[in-house]
């Protein structure tokens, strides 16, 4: 089923897809980061109907180019009867997009999915990836005085930035 889904996604997105694979029933596409809004919009509005952005996170592959990958987990939770078309069954898709260290930015998905708002703020907070077009991109878990982005692999493991008290 994941293979059929990937074929449909490949037809839909055309040359925006850089790579794809299906493993253990999970479909993954690696797409062009510059066209991420176009890609997510197409997936949402096509007959695949990916109407839920379940998760949005990032991975830091330090030493690789592009260094970061932003990962979107999309789901179709359509409640209509689906008939026999396998690609219309309830399905999920993982979309990945590579992000360079400089400029460390990607288009925001907030105009397509409202659930992207806080998740993009979290990724900005912990990885320092800028989401262009986000209405209010500020820290969500840490405090404004915090310097750096702690889930980056080059953030010093021992570095502490308490608001009060000793440096532990």
């Amino acid at each position, binding site marked *: 089923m994941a293979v059929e889904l990937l074929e449909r996604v490949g037809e839909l997105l055309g040359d925006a897809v850089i790579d794809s694979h299906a493993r253990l029933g999970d479909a993954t596409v690696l797409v062009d980061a510059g066209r991420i809004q176009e890609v997510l919009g197409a997936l949402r509005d096509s007959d695949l109907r990916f109407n839920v952005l379940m998760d949005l996170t990032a991975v830091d592959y330090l030493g690789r180019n592009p260094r970061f990958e932003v990962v979107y987990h999309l789901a179709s939770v359509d409640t209509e009867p689906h008939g026999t078309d396998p690609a219309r069954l309830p399905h999920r898709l993982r979309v990945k997009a590579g992000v360079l260290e400089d400029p460390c930015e990607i288009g925001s998905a907030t105009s397509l999915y409202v659930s992207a708002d806080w998740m993009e703020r979290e990724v900005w907070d912990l990885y320092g990836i800028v989401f262009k077009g986000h209405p209010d991109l500020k820290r969500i*878990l840490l405090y404004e*005085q915090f310097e750096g982005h702690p889930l980056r692999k080059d953030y010093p493991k021992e*570095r*502490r*930035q*308490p608001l*009060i*008290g*000793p440096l*532990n």
Partner: protein
Amino acid sequence: MTEKLEILRQGRDSFLTTKIDAVVNWGRKYSFFLYPFVTACCGMEFMSAAGPRYDLDRFGAALPRFSPRQADLLMVVGTISHRQAPILKKVYDQMAEPKWTVAFGACTCSGGPYNNYATVQGIDTIVPVDIYIPGCPPRPEAVIDGLVKLQQRVQATPGWNKPHHKEIEDLSLPIIEKPLP
């Protein structure tokens, strides 16, 4: 003492002499009003200890007060992050003397399993702590043991009308002066 009590019981005498420290502390140790500063999973275990099966009410610590002004026992239950730390300090400062603090669980005692950018490595770096209850989470028996030890400590406190906590010197560290962007 037994003889005196027997005289009182028979109504032949009408007063008993003692020390005011002993009487005041006796009253205090059996009437804790606790402020549950609950931030994490230890809270479930705290509810279990406070609930009917283990019943902290037997020790006089039954009524949680959700205003620090009305509480005299600060129960810090759960992981304290650096973002939460100024709030904990503020709550402690708002409590009136006499006041005591219990560090409930491994995270409050030492940071527990979390030694990272986000977690305070023991709340005693922020507020003075009277009793540490270790465990991840502590068993209700450990909580009760901690409470009884705190009662013993309260009973032994000299000077009923004097503040008994010295500010930790580290606490005079100011909040980082960096302005918000």
